[in-house]
Each structure stands twice: as structure tokens, then as C-alpha cells.
């Protein structure tokens, strides 16, 4: 298990992290609108994260932090 944090300041809601998450635990949060007007990504199941870093690798905005 690892902790995935998405910075609402950086995220532009492009969804690439959602597409590349093998565990299918990344989603765009339609209940939140960022200051720039995007639905940011968030991790919906931290327990299932296997720390593969795929989401962070594909994030063009370097919005994702992954901690042990």
C-alpha cells in the first residue's frame, strides 16, 4: 500500500493517470472544481495502491506525490 496525493493546485484533470492506473483506483473527482476550472484526479482506494508510479509517470503537471 502507498499513499497517492494529487495536488489540486497543479492538476488539470486530463485523466491520463486514470487511464494508466492498473489498479483502477484513480478517478476524476466531479464534486470538486479547481481554481482553473478542472475536475481534479484523486485516489479512491489507497489500500489497493501497489506503488507502480504509473500515474505519476504519466502526469504532465507533476501533480502527484506517492509516499510509502
Amino acid at each position, binding site marked *: 500500500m502507498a499513499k497517492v496525493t494529487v495536488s489540486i493546485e497543479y492538476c488539470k484533470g486530463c485523466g491520463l493517470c486514470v487511464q494508466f492506473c492498473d489498479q483502477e483506483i484513480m478517478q476524476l473527482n466531479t464534486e470538486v472544481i479547481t481554481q482553473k476550472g478542472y475536475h481534479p484526479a484523486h485516489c479512491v482506494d489507497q489500500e489497493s495502491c501497489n506503488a507502480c*508510479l504509473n500515474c505519476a509517470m504519466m502526469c504532465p503537471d507533476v501533480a502527484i506525490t*506517492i509516499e510509502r
Partner: protein
Amino acid sequence: MTAEKNPILFGRTAGLSEKVNNFCPGCLHGIAQRLVAESIDRLGLIGQTVGITPVGCAVIAYEFYSCDMVQAAHGRAPAVATGLKRARPENTIFTYQGDGDLASIGMAETIHAATRGENITVIFINNAIYGMTGGQLAPTSLPGQITQTSPYGRDVKVAGNPIRVCELLSSLDGVALAQRVTVNSPSNVRKAGKAIRKAFEYQNEGLGFTIVEILTTCPTNWGLAPNKALGWLEDNLIPYYPLGVYKDIKAGE
């Protein structure tokens, strides 16, 4: 013995500033930029690096790195890099240029910096279109590709043929490394990072001109959602611009 492990598995590199980049959502520029910043960080080069931004989507990228930065006129980054490197050979110099900047208006500067074997690293972002100006035909736009200025598709009889930059430069003696990568998947991102680090290492060994061409997307001007743009890159760009190492003077060592 239980050494304290760094709890951060992935975070923002010290090579980047804290500013939010200006790229459109899903544009792979952001990944390429992060890889460059991460490379100079991992190699311990932030304090000795000077980056040069082009005219195009990365024009204000001088705001996004933590190293010293210079903004260059359209296409002139390799000439500016030459001046910087000749003045201070101890510094690590990179340019970050798009296809219009590098392969159209700046082709002379590119080829001559390459053939001189200038000890600089060129990061070449090829997404087959002009992004900042609104999606015009680029020197690397594919045959048949629809852009704002090729609305019926690129007719090579009229607009000429695209340029394959790595292939072109690989014939020049001054080139130490010419490699084409992409950042359309996590494994390709890792390979691209490795290529960029190799280029910086070659520069610091004084081996000559290094170029890493990165195939990227332009969701906005291709008119595709970010995920669909990745598919278009895979199906169209990579077949015309095959990935691989076109020159590596250390190959076989």
C-alpha cells in the same frame, strides 16, 4: 540494520520551480519538461545548468525550472547555446525546442551546431504541429495531416515532405547522440528519461552534440482528447518517425 527509507516514492523534482506550467491539459510537454528537470536534478547538475527556451508552447518555460534560464529568439536556441557554452564551457547547457522552432525557422542553427559538435544537449519536442500559434502545418506534420494551414490535409506536392530530424542529423560527424523516444506510456517515459540523462552525461564528458527527440501529443490542436491523442501518436507518428537510437558514438563500447 534498518536504514530509514525515504518515504517519498515520487514527488516534484528540485529541478522544477513551484509554478504551474502553462501547457494544455493532457499535453505531453509537461512530462518531457519534468524529465529534463529530473535529469539535471538526479545528475546533480542544477547549479551548473543553463536552459534555453524557444518560441512556441515552451516559450515561458524559463519560469518552470529552478536552474538559470535564457529565452531565445525563434529557432535561435542552438546559436544562443553555442554562445553560452563557448563563454562558460564548465556549464551544462540545454535547449528545449519544438518542431517549428528547431526544424523550420531554426534548421540552419540546428544543423550547424550539430556539425560543429557543440557540447550542448537539444531536447526536441516533435508533435507534428505548431501549438502556440493555433495548429498550423509544421515541418514534421505528416502527409495528409489536417492542420489550420493544410485544411485539406498535407499535400506533399504542394507543401513538401516532412523532415525526420534524428535521421538527418545522424549523418553529421559532430553528433554524439541522436535518439528518438516518446512519452506515451510509463515504460516509454522511463526510457525517455534514460535517454535524456545519457545526453547530459555525454555533454559533460565533452563528446559533442546530443539530441533527444521526443514524440508528443497536441490534444488541443489535433482536436483529440488526451487519451485519444496517445492513440493517434501510436498509430501515426511512431510509424513515420520510428523510435530508436540513430547515432551513439559510444555504441558498441
